């Protein structure tokens, strides 16, 4: 007899049979009445069988209750219509190439080019319709086409492979114009399971249900990754231990010549590979920090002089190399970077240190370097999935440089005389840019990530922002900031709705990288000018308290708006445009670009 396990334990166990998973889900639902709820729609040209069960399983493991609207058979447009009426937020389409027409893979081999081109054109227009009618969803994931039959040998002709690639090209081209649509690579998901475990020809023949549980579970896992745990996490900072995490051995004892980091010899090669992976994450926009109990001089020498080191000083945003407790160092890192503890992933080889952090800072995601070093690459894969999730917007890449500029600016701050003198010395320039579509990805990303300087914590998808930009009664302002140390890029967003007589600030948020320099005051004259153009007399704004945005609780009052008497949340503030004078920040040169424009660089 099996031991009695809790619902969560059964759900977490990959080997749990389907029947137990279903019972555990029912139990979990009952035990978690207050779990956050998310709605998901599934659509396919075949029957997806128990996919919804596996999706609910992965969501429950993130503490989220998923309500799933199932797919009708081969009616994606109808599905979307139904999902819209049901208020579905997220959609996943999993089309099967072989069922585009019955036994399509077998047909393709003898198809004339003209016939295939007709199919392609029909698919193109159908996907365009589907994407067009999916604008109202927060996010739509579409799996690329894949084959069921094995590929021929290396030198064999492969009409199926060619047709799959061709139709996927259609998908890519059509999806490119729709910010809410993201394609997911079927080949990658299939490769994780292998064809024999992926397809069930028995149910495919009888019930058009071609996918085995193993593959469906893998898809559910993939959706959990790309949705960042169904929206439950967003990691930006990777904090690394040094000894036996970045290299083998202990630098303080084994010295530069004794630590293991040979790219060609294990165990050094395993650490060297890990460093390569960490550097790749840094290039993708994540911040790397060190947190190590060591003599700083030893670690610095390692960073500077070891010939095989991949990570050098220029990849690292902060180094906490000292004999303090790691939880204290992690707190300090979060404070100095102005991010929440729940933005941090911490990696250490010591079970003792990992446990100390887990127990004292449960918000930090703590991962232990496996005792079996051969399993280290699997951990790295997990880190990559956790941090990159659904990919990153281009401008996010390599943030380290910006944060380091900011650290340099801090040093200058302590040296300079008065605060204003210091701010003047920075040569700060801000640009307020109105409704520029080219900036959609980065604007959306900032609304998803900013927690502290965020007045309403509204998260916007790219499609919501695009619709707001197109709305004549609304504007999306984005703010670029630069100083003499370099450009901080897009660091602020203001969303304004023009109602009759009143302009309402629906969202205002800024990246923590630029807070405290007066940019939060300097941008308002530009926005007031736009409000005047719309003929409104009053500006109104809300502060919606969250767990993290206490720092802006009195922001609107400091801005000179009057609190409106009201019970509960949000707190409303307003001012008449004629009498309102926002605080000035004369040390900032602020330009306004009403139309699409880039920052005007002087010199």
């Amino acid at each position, binding site marked *: 007899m099996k031991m009695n396990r809790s619902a969560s334990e059964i759900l977490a166990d990959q080997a749990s049979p389907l*029947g137990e998973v279903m019972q555990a889900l029912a139990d979990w639902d009952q035990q978690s009445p207050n779990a956050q709820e998310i709605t998901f729609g599934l659509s396919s040209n075949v029957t997806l*069988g128990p996919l919804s069960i596996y999706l609910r399983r992965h969501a429950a493991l993130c503490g989220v209750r998923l309500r799933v609207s199932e797919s009708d058979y081969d009616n994606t447009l109808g599905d979307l219509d139904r999902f819209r009426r049901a208020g579905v937020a997220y959609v996943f389409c999993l089309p099967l190439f072989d069922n585009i027409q019955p036994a399509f893979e077998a047909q393709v081999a003898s198809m004339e080019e003209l016939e295939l081109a007709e199919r392609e054109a029909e698919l193109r227009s159908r996907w365009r319709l589907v994407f067009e009618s999916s604008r109202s969803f927060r996010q739509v994931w579409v799996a690329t086409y894949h084959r069921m039959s094995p590929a021929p040998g290396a030198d064999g002709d492969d009409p199926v492979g060619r047709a799959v690639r061709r139709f996927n090209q259609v998908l890519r081209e059509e999806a490119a114009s729709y910010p809410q649509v993201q394609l997911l690579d079927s080949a990658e998901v299939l490769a994780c399971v292998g064809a024999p475990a992926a397809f069930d020809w028995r149910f495919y023949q009888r019930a058009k249900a071609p996918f085995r*549980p193993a593959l469906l579970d893998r898809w559910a896992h993939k959706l959990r990754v790309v949705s960042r745990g169904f929206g439950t996490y967003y990691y930006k900072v990777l904090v690394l231990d040094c000894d036996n995490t970045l290299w083998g051995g202990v630098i303080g004892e084994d010295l530069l010549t004794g630590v293991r980091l040979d790219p060609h010899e294990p165990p050094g090669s395993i650490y060297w590979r890990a460093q390569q992976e960490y550097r790749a994450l840094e290039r993708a926009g994540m911040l790397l920090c060190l947190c190590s109990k060591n003599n700083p001089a030893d670690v610095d020498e390692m960073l500077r002089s070891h010939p095989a080191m991949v990570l050098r000083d220029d990849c690292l945003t902060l180094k906490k190399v000292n004999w303090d407790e790691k939880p204290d160092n992690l707190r300090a890192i979060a404070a100095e970077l102005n991010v929440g503890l729940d933005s941090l992933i911490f990696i250490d080889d010591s079970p003792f240190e990992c446990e100390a952090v887990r127990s004292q800072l449960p918000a930090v995601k703590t991962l232990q370097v496996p005792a079996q070093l051969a399993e280290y690459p699997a951990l790295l894969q997990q880190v990559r999935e956790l941090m990159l999730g659904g990919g990153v917007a281009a401008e996010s890449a390599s943030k380290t440089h910006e944060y380091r500029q900011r650290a340099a600016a801090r040093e200058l701050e302590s040296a300079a005389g008065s605060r204003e003198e210091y701010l003047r010395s920075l040569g700060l320039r801000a640009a307020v840019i109105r409704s520029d579509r080219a900036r959609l990805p980065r604007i959306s990303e900032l609304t998803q990530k900013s927690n502290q300087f965020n007045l309403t914590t509204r998260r916007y998808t790219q499609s919501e922002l695009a619709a707001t930009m197109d709305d004549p009664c609304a504007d999306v302002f984005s703010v670029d900031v630069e100083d003499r140390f370099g450009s901080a890029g897009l660091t602020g967003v203001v969303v304004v709705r023009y109602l009759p007589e009143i302009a309402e600030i629906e969202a205002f948020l800024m990246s923590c990288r630029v807070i405290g320099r007066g940019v939060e005051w300097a941008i308002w004259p530009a926005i007031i000018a736009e409000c005047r153009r719309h003929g409104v007399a009053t500006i109104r704004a809300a502060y919606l308290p969250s767990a993290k945005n206490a720092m802006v609780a009195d922001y609107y009052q400091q801005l000179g708006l009057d609190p409106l008497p009201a019970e509960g949340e949000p707190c409303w503030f307003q001012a008449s445009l004629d009498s309102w004078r926002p605080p000035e920040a004369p040390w900032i040169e602020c330009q306004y670009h009403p139309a699409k424009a880039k920052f005007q660089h002087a010199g």
Partner: protein
Amino acid sequence: MPDNQEERIKRVLGAVLGIPPGNIPPEASMDTVSSWDSLRHMNLILALEEEFHISIPDEEAANLSSLPLLRLTVSEQLKEV
């Protein structure tokens, strides 16, 4: 042992169809249990295969529309293993 097997089949049946195993009559079938539709039937076959580590042949899968038939097939498959 057969009692235990009956219990396991009922537990899977209950989980898939969303009814307490205790309420499943020994002669339950697609005709008498309203939640036992063709989609759930497929999940039921998959779940039984995983529970007992058996493989139910194609020609039988669709026809196992009652608890007595499921009982019979599971026993046969277990003997073959």
